[in-house]
């Protein structure tokens, strides 16, 4: 007996919130708008928790069909939700972190214009993301997929009067679209060859196929195309260019969408489609290579950036690369583990960065920060937690997840491990660089220093309905000086900091004495070839007898080797810390000297290897020029408009000529009549003569 958990409530509640705020928000007070938004997203989180508590009683996978959708011949697609361990993890992460960010946003966006619009979009995003995560078939997932792209566009371009923001939103959407194209073709292939987009049906059929080890085949094609979609959504090479620009949006948006949830949709999708990928080794290798290269590439760019949010953006791209690397070596649960911990510490980092920006009145350039440690202590400590977590220093969350990825990567190929290790070193370096530049030393900025104790009740600055914010993402409100953020912004920071510290402990590997509960929890999803359908395997953690073990539990061999590698990665992280300390704390004049010495190379890194410029030349310029010259001038003006204009002109000319017939002169009328009569008579005579 499958209990009906009303899974549909989870996406629909934020949708209602979005509708309420969107339709009526303009007339409501800020308090009312905030209440609506928090209530509905909190309710979604509540339902998710409820589902979690009931999880053990469910027969998995738990499917709830809400409504019929498409019935076309043999093809069926319904609005249905799919719950198993994987979607439960994603669900809790999305609703939990999402709710916290909603709370934070109330404080952060309090003085911005378009307050109701922001929360409407944010709730809308939650709806789409939850649809994506809970989907039962690729089509419903695609709805969510597209929808989060839309929400991302709306939120990136939230300050739409600013040119750069509007362009960034467009860029995000268009690059996403390129990925979606690949995704769609994959869907078409699935429909054509498997007749369905339903997860259960597709995976059942796929698992009866043999792996394509001999060469590229259908599954490889599908896998590669799915990866194209994932690369677009999750900002991997070569479709990552939109994410740094997406920092134009308000900081909570960067936290929620471009760190914790939307960009992880690609990872989720690949993990969900693991059945396909496991039978297409070529595709899997491509995934791993893309992930690894992206991780390295983005980390190198992050080292040189001066905008605090851009550093975090490139860091996100890099960490997503890790997740794809993990997927590529078939360590799917490791990827999801890192996804979860990353949501905690990257969300925390972004929110804390927003707090810093708020504190110093809108400045985002790290060269103008410094010495903020004493002035904004809560922000400082939470951000420290996040930084240590991402650097991968035990016992914080990032260490466990990243380490597991590196270990599994090593078992596939030492090349992955080496690049991953080097990237981990760089991650630690640039994160601590950020940390040192922001909090230590002396303040290099221009805001007057008036040490405030952290105070609550911050948000009483109503009455300035400006939509465009001037400096950075947050309007300087001239409070007078550097001050701590209000409690409504600090509480989520603290909660996320706690999660960043303890969140990894559910995944402590066996080699360190833990039970690796996380891996065991996700085992039924990833360890079996077909999804378990029997009631006997209802409890999570039990491994159903698989036909073929594709991802086994961690090999028990060489525990000592594993500990050795762990030690090496910790060493790399500490090395990064030390280097950052030297360059940015002890000897702050060194970085400039190094930059000068490296000259052109440094410039290239600073300018993101000119990839945007390259894309501009290769794709954007030809497209825009072609659009203007061929489509606009050539087709629209010269053909379509010209046809209409010319036919109108022609009609006018003809009528101008014919007008002369209507002269009012009776005799000319008579003349026409005579001529016409003669013509008719001639015709009749001719007909008669035939």
């Amino acid at each position: 007996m499958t209990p009906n958990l009303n899974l549909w409530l989870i996406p629909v509640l934020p949708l209602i919130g979005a509708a309420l705020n969107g339709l009526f928000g303009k007339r409501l007070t800020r308090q009312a708008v905030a209440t609506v938004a928090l209530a509905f997203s909190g309710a979604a989180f509540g339902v998710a928790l409820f589902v979690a508590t009931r999880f053990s009683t469910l027969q998995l996978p738990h499917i709830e069909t809400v409504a019929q959708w498409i019935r076309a011949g043999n093809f069926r697609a319904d609005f249905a939700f799919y719950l198993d361990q994987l979607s439960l993890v994603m669900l809790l992460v999305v609703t939990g972190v999402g709710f916290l960010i909603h709370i934070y946003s109330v404080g952060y966006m309090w003085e911005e214009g378009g307050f109701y619009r922001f929360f409407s979009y944010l709730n809308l995003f939650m709806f789409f993301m939850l649809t994506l995560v809970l989907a039962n078939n690729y089509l419903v997932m695609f709805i969510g997929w597209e929808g989060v792209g839309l929400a991302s566009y709306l939120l990136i371009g939230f300050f739409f009067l600013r040119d750069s923001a509007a362009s960034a939103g467009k860029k995000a959407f268009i690059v996403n679209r390129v990925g979606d194209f690949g995704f769609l073709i994959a869907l078409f292939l699935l429909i054509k060859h498997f007749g369905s987009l339903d997860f259960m049906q597709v995976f059942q059929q796929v698992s009866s196929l043999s792996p394509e080890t001999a060469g590229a085949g259908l599954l490889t094609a599908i896998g590669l195309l799915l990866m194209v979609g994932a690369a677009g959504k999750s900002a991997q090479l070569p479709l990552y260019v939109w994410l740094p620009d997406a920092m134009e949006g308000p900081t909570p948006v960067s936290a929620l969408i471009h760190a914790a949830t939307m960009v992880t949709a690609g990872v989720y999708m690949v993990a969900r489609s693991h059945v396909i990928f496991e039978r297409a080794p070529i595709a899997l290798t491509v995934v791993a290579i893309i992930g690894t290269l992206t991780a390295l590439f983005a980390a190198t760019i992050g080292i040189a950036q001066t905008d605090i949010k851009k550093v975090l953006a490139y860091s996100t791209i890099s960490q997503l690369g890790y997740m794809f690397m993990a997927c590529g070596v078939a360590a799917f649960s490791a990827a999801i583990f890192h996804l979860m911990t990353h949501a905690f510490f990257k969300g925390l980092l972004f929110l804390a960065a927003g707090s810093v920006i708020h504190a110093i009145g809108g400045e985002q350039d790290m060269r103008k920060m410094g010495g903020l440690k004493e002035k904004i202590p809560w922000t400082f400590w939470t951000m420290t937690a996040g930084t240590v977590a991402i650097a991968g220093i035990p016992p914080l969350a990032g260490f466990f997840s990243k380490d597991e990825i590196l270990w599994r990567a090593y078992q596939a190929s030492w090349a992955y491990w080496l690049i991953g290790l080097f990237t981990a070193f760089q991650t630690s370096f640039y994160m601590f660089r950020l940390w040192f530049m922001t909090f230590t030393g002396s303040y290099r900025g221009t805001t007057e220093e008036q040490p405030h104790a952290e105070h609550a009740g911050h948000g009483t600055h109503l009455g300035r309905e400006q939509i465009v914010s001037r400096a950075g993402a947050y309007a300087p409100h001239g409070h007078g000086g550097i001050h701590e953020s209000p409690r409504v912004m600090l509480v989520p920071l603290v909660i996320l900091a706690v999660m960043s510290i303890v969140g990894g402990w559910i995944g402590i590997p066996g080699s360190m004495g833990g039970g690796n509960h996380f891996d065991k929890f996700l085992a039924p999803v990833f360890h079996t070839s077909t999804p378990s359908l029997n009631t006997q395997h209802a409890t999570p953690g039990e491994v159903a007898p698989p036909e073929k073990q594709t991802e086994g539990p961690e090999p028990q061999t060489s525990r000592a080797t594993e500990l050795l590698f762990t030690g090496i990665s910790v060493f790399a992280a500490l090395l990064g810390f030390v280097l950052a300390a030297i360059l940015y704390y002890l000897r702050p004049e060194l970085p400039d000297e190094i930059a000068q010495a490296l000259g052109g190379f440094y410039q290239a890194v600073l300018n993101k290897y000119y990839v945007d410029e390259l894309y501009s030349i290769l794709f954007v310029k030809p497209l825009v020029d072609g659009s203007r010259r061929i489509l606009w001038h050539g087709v629209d003006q010269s053909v379509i408009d010209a046809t209409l204009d010319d036919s109108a002109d022609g009609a006018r000319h003809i009528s101008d000529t014919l007008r002369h017939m209507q002269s009012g002169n009776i005799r000319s009328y008579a003349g026409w009549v005579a001529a016409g009569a003669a013509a008719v008579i001639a015709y009749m005579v001719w007909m008669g003569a035939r």
Partner: protein
Amino acid sequence: MVPLSYYLVLSGILFACGVLGFLIKRNIITIFMSIELMLNGVNLSFVAFAAQWHALSGQVFVFFVMVVAAAEAAVGLAIIIAVYRTRETLNVDQVNLLKL
């Protein structure tokens, strides 16, 4: 013995003169008289054909044509008078209110 065609040629000449007068003349009344001339030409051909085919209804039709011509003449002349009152001219070129 006159062949029928002679009558028809005469009828045609009358008709053609009527049309020509309609086209050339400037005085409204004269134009109207050209119309009458046309009708007369047609009448002649009716009677001629009636004679050829021994159908008396041809002559009856001529009778009707005359009645209608009379009615038309009455009304037409009334119109001419009305137009003359407003326009003060009988020159058809100056009655050009039909112009667009």
